[in-house]
């Protein structure tokens, strides 16, 4: 049954991908890429990767589509006709595809217990998580503790991306005349039904984001997914009430504080571990009981990730919105 469903989903993915490539209208392409993300989230889910599926659904199908629509507001909707050596491009793509297909022949079968990926450190993680960290969701244990360095790196990738977008898109204060954007500040105020329903939903979306944030030890979830969900809720609020009202609720400086504070919190937890006599990002020394220390460390680190992700996504959204209102 899973195989049939998987083949069905992968066929749909292929159809959607071709649709994205062929779409001349960029709006259609953005919508199709949202659908693509939702489908690939379903594929991740039937592969039992619930954490990744949640991330893909929240980021790919939710926030990314909104941000791409924000970018579309700044450029034209029509794709410029392609120029240049198209045959060459086709040949390169075809060759790469053939190489990738050829490479898959050497790949172990899906879920093969003898595959290298299941023989390396994964058995150790599965065996030792219960003793060392004692959280039911091994994914969170790996992500936040065993491979805390990697996640710190990912967090700084997001942090840097946020700074980059601010550099490129942010409107200087004097161009704004010290004021927040006025265009679109009406939002959807005159559309009663979306407004009422949206207002009703925003608190629940943010609440669900907080649940995903703090439930990450026990089920699928964590800082990345929660950040995307909370940002989605607040973007919905901004769309309903308008930019100005949204920035009054969560001021730009608060967003900057979230971005920097989250990265600082993560690094700070690592340095606190060093000061208490452990290694960088060694949470076991944070409390007298190593397992309790791991719990505390994971909680704080995930909080840092959530803060930075929320801040960066909202800042990117507001950067697009401000740019659109200055034009």
């Amino acid at each position, binding site marked *: 049954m899973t195989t049939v469903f998987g083949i069905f989903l992968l066929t749909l993915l292929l159809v959607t991908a071709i649709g994205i490539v062929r779409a001349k209208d960029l709006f259609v392409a953005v919508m199709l890429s949202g659908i693509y993300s939702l489908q690939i989230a379903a594929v991740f889910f039937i592969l039992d990767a619930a954490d990744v599926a949640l991330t893909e659904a929240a980021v790919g199908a939710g926030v990314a589509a909104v941000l791409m629509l924000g970018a579309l507001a700044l450029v034209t909707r029509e794709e410029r006709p392609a120029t240049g050596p198209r045959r060459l491009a086709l040949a390169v793509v075809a060759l790469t595809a053939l190489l990738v297909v050829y490479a898959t022949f050497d790949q172990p079968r899906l879920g093969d217990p003898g595959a290298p990926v299941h023989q390396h450190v994964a058995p150790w993680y599965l065996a030792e998580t219960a003793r060392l960290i004692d959280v039911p969701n091994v994914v969170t244990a790996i992500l936040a503790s065993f491979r805390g360095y990697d996640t710190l790196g990912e967090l700084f990738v997001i942090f840097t991306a946020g700074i980059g977008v601010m550099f490129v898109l942010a409107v200087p204060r004097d161009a704004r005349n010290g004021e927040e954007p006025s265009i679109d500040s009406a939002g959807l105020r005159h*559309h009663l039904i*979306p407004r009422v329903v*949206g207002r009703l*939903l925003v608190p629940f979306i943010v609440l669900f984001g907080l649940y995903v944030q703090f439930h990450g030890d026990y089920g699928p979830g964590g800082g990345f997914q929660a950040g995307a969900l909370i940002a989605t809720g607040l973007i919905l609020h901004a769309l309903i009430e308008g930019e100005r009202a949204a920035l009054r609720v969560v001021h730009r400086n608060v967003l900057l504080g979230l971005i920097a504070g989250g990265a600082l919190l993560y690094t700070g937890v690592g340095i606190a571990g060093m000061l208490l006599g452990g290694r960088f990002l060694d949470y076991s020394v944070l409390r007298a009981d190593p397992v309790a220390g791991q719990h505390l460390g994971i909680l704080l680190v995930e909080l840092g990730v959530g803060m930075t992700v929320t801040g960066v996504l909202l800042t990117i959204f507001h950067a697009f919105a401000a740019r659109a209102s200055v034009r």
Partner: protein
Amino acid sequence: MSLVLDSASFVLFVIGGAFIFTGGLGVLRMPDLYTRMHPAGITDTTGTILVLAGCLLQADLGLVTVKLAAILVFLLLTAPTAAYALANAARLAGVVPLRAAPRREDAAR
């Protein structure tokens, strides 16, 4: 008891599936945007909600029931709103219903 629950959820699944199927068919067959939105809206609301209700009857009473019920309430609120927002946006963008167009010509004549 379980027989009653099973048959009730079976009926709900079948009716919901039928609504989703005819909804998909309608999106393909209907002539213009507004008429296409009607089957699309039915797929989103009636079809999905009936299938979810069937799932509710299958789930053991507990956390899963609450989660399914929450999704059901969420869909009850969002799906009609999305349909409304779509129709509203089309109206504002100046999409004219199929039947309305010739009538205007009649009035002009």
